[in-house]
C-alpha cells in the first residue's frame, strides 16, 4: 500500500510549531529517551552541541557517555559506530557537514553497507548531518552526496523536506535495522516551521508523500526543492496549470509505486533536484518511469537540476548554479503545452 496522502492527514493531534531543525532535535531526543541503546557520536556534538546545534543540550541530559565527541576522523566515527552496532547499540553518527562523508566513503560503502549481505550482520546505525546548498557555503559546505549511496545497495537514504517528515523519519531511521543515511537540508534548518506532533509517531522509510495534488503535470522532487516546486505550483495555478508535487522523502529504496501513480495521473513529469544533473537521481527516476509508465507519457521527461559543476561560493554564481523558480515555471509551461 502506498501512502499518497497529504501532509495534513499524517499529523496526530498533539502538536506544536517547530522548525525543521527543532523537529530533528525532538525526534533524536525522544528516541534517546525511549531507547538507552541509542547514542550520538561525532565531532563537536557534546558540550558545543554540534556545528548546527542539532544536539545542543543533549550532553547535559544524556551525559558524555552517550554524546561522544570524537577526533576529526570520519572513518573512525563510522567504523566505531558500526562496531558498536554489532553489540546491539543504535549509534547516530553526525557528519559536521555531509561534504565530509567522502572521508568515510570506503568504511560506509564497503564495511557497513555490505555487512548484512556478506555475513549476516545487521548494522542499525544512522549517519546524519547537514547537506545541500543555497547558503553560500561554497564547494565544501554545500554538497548533496545522495547518489553515491542511492547507488550503494545495503544502505537506505532519507531526505526530508518538512519538519514533520524530518521528525518522523529520524525516528524511523533510528529504529531501522539497516544503516540509514539521513540527509538534513541545511537551508531548511531554520527557514521552515510547521506544526509537528509532540507525541511518538514515525514516518515510514520508503514511502513518498503527495505534497500537493494536481491535474496537469507532476513534479517529482525532494528536500529543499519541494519548496521551490510549491512556489512554482502556486504561480502556475494562477495560470490554470495545476501541478502535482510528489516529495520522495526516501531516496533509497525509491517508492516506485508512488512515482508510477503520479505519472499515470498527470502524464507529464518534471524531475527536480538540487544535486547536479549527470548521474543524479532524475536519471534513475526517468528510467523507472520508462519501465513502469512508458505508454502513459504525453511528453518528454524534463530534468531540472543544478549545473554539472562544483557548488560555487559567490551568491550570483550559486544562484546561477542552482535550479531556479523561473526554470521550473518555464519548463512547466513548456511541458504543459507539449
Amino acid at each position, binding site marked *: 500500500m502506498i501512502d499518497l496522502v497529504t501532509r495534513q492527514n499524517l499529523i496526530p493531534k498533539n502538536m506544536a510549531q517547530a522548525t525543521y*531543525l*527543532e523537529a530533528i*532535535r*525532538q525526534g533524536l*531526543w525522544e528516541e534517546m529517551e525511549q531507547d*538507552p*541503546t541509542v*547514542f550520538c557520536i561525532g565531532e563537536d556534538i557534546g558540550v558545543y*552541541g554540534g*556545528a*548546527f*546545534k542539532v544536539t*545542543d*543540550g543533549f550532553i*547535559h*541530559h*544524556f*551525559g558524555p*557517555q*552517550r554524546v*561522544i565527541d570524537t*577526533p576529526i*576522523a570520519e*572513518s*573512525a566515527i*563510522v*567504523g*566505531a*559506530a558500526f*562496531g*558498536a552496532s*554489532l*553489540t*546491539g*547499540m*543504535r*549509534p547516530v553518527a553526525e557528519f559536521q557537514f555531509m561534504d565530509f562523508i567522502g572521508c568515510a566513503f*570506503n*568504511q560506509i560503502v*564497503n*564495511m557497513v553497507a*555490505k*555487512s*548484512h*549481505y*556478506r*555475513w*549476516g*550482520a*545487521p548494522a*542499525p546505525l544512522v549517519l546524519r548531518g547537514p547537506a545541500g546548498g543555497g*547558503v*553560500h557555503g561554497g564547494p565544501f*559546505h554545500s554538497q548533496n552526496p545522495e547518489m553515491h549511496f542511492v547507488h550503494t*545497495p*545495503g544502505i537506505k537514504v532519507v531526505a526530508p523536506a518538512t519538519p514533520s517528515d524530518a521528525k518522523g523519519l529520524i525516528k524511523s531511521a533510528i529504529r531501522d*535495522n*539497516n544503516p540509514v543515511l539521513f540527509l538534513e537540508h541545511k537551508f531548511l*534548518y*531554520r527557514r521552515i516551521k510547521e506544526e509537528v506532533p509532540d507525541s511518538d509517531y514515525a514516518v515510514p522509510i520508503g514511502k513518498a508523500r503527495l505534497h500537493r495534488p494536481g491535474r496537469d503535470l507532476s513534479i517529482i522532487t525532494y528536500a529543499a526543492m519541494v519548496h521551490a516546486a510549491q512556489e512554482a505550483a502556486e504561480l502556475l495555478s494562477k495560470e490554470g496549470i495545476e501541478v502535482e508535487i510528489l516529495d520522495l522523502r526516501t531516496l533509497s529504496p525509491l517508492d516506485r509505486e508512488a512515482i508510477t501513480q503520479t505519472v499515470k495521473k498527470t502524464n507529464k513529469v518534471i524531475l527536480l533536484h538540487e544535486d547536479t544533473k549527470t548521474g543524479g537521481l532524475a536519471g534513475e527516476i526517468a528510467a523507472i518511469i520508462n519501465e513502469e509508465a512508458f505508454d502513459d507519457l504525453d511528453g518528454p521527461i524534463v530534468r531540472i537540476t543544478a549545473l554539472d559543476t562544483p557548488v560555487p561560493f559567490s551568491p550570483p554564481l550559486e544562484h546561477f548554479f542552482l535550479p531556479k523558480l523561473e526554470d521550473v515555471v518555464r519548463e512547466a509551461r513548456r511541458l504543459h503545452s507539449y
Partner: protein
Amino acid sequence: MAAKTKINKISRNGSKRSANGGSAAKANALRVNQYGIPDWRLEQPEFEVFEVASGTEVHYEIKGKLNAPAPPIRESRYMNREQHLELYRWMVLNRRMEQALENLYKQSKVVGGVYFGLGQEACSCASAFALGPDDWFAPMIRNQGAQLVRGFHARDIMMQYMAKSGSPTHGKDGTSHYGDIEKRHMVSPISMLGDLLPVMAGVSLGARMQGKELACLTWIGDGGQSTGVSYEGINFAAVRKLGLVLIIESNLWAYSTPTEYQVAVKDLANRAIGYGMPGVIIDGTDACQVYDATYEAVERAHRGEGPTLIEAKLMRMKGHAIHDAAAYVPKEMHEFWRKRDCIDRFEKYLMDKKWLTPGQKETMVAEVEKEIDADRAFAENSPMPEGHTAAEGVYCEAGCHVIKPKYGMPKRAKRGEGKLKQTEAAIHFK
C-alpha cells in the same frame, strides 16, 4: 535535584605514566629499544633489504647476519602445560589445514586464490588463544588459525574458499571474509586494509556502554597499517581507552613491497608512543611471547585501561597468495626465517621440556589429519548455492534479526530531568 559533581580527568598519556605506559607489558621486559619500547625478543635479527638497480634491471638484495642461529623460546609466564599442548595442536591444525587448502586449489576445487599464514601460525593461534571467552576478534587473511582457535572448523574455511552454500557466508563472500556476532564474536574483515581497526574500537565502545569491558583483538600487516583508517582507529581507541588489542604483523613484506618502502621507522611499535599507548615488540615466531603479550594486553583491556600495540616480528613465508611465487624476495631471507619456523621451534621446546613425546606428536598429527580429512570430505560434498539466493539478504528485513544489547541494557545516566529546550545559538552558515 541535588547535582553531584563528578570530575572526569580526560585521558592523556602525559607525564604521570612512565615512558611506555602499560606496566604489565613492562614487567617482563628485559630489554627496551632506543625509545623505551619493551622488546621481548631473544634475538634482534640484523639485516637490511636493498634495492639494487643495474643498467637493465632492478631487484632486491639482503645484507646482514644471515646465519645467526635461531633463538630459543621464551618461557611463558601465563600458560600451563596443557595450554602449551593445546596451542601446539592449534598451530599444527592451522598449518595442515592450509596444506589441505593448497591441495584443494591444485585440484581446482577452490574458487579464486588461497592465502596462507605459513610461518605465522604462532602469531595467529597464540594470540587468539589468549583471549577470554567473551572477547571479540577480527582476523585478517593470514589469521586462519585464529578462526580455528575461536571455534570455527576447517570445513568452514574450506567451504568459504570453495564458495559453497554451507559456508558461513553461504557463498556470498570467500576466504576469511566471514564472521559471527552471535556466538564466536568474530567480525568479518573486508579487503580494504585497516578498516577493522575503528570497528573493533567500536565493539569495545558498545560493550562498555553495556557495562562490559571487552578485549577486541585484531591484526594488521606492516603494509596494511599504512592506511589512514588504521591510524584513525588506533588513535580513537587510545583517546577513549578502548579495549583494542592490535597485533602488527611485521612480516617484512606487503605483497611485493619490502617494509623499507612502506615505513621509514625500524620498529612499528614506536608508533605507540605517538598514540600515547603502550607498545611492545615480540618475536612473532615464538608462541610463548605472542601468548604472553596478548594475554597482558587482554588483561589491560578487561581492566578498561585502553589499547595495546604489539609488534610481532616475523616473515611471510609464502607469496602474497597462491599465485605469487615471491620471486622478488631474496632467497637468503626465506632461509633465515625457515630456521625460525614457529612450529618446529615450539615443538622442540615442548619436547625438550618433555611435555611432548614423538609418539604423542604422531598421535596428535594423525588426529588433526583425520579431522581435516573429514572436514574436507564434508566441504567437498556440500552443494554450491543456488543462483537466486544472490538477490537475497541485502537488507535486514522484518524478523531477520532481533537487535538487542548483547551485554545488558545500558544504564541511563542519573542526570537532571531536563527537557529538550529550543536552541538559538549562532551557527556557521545560515
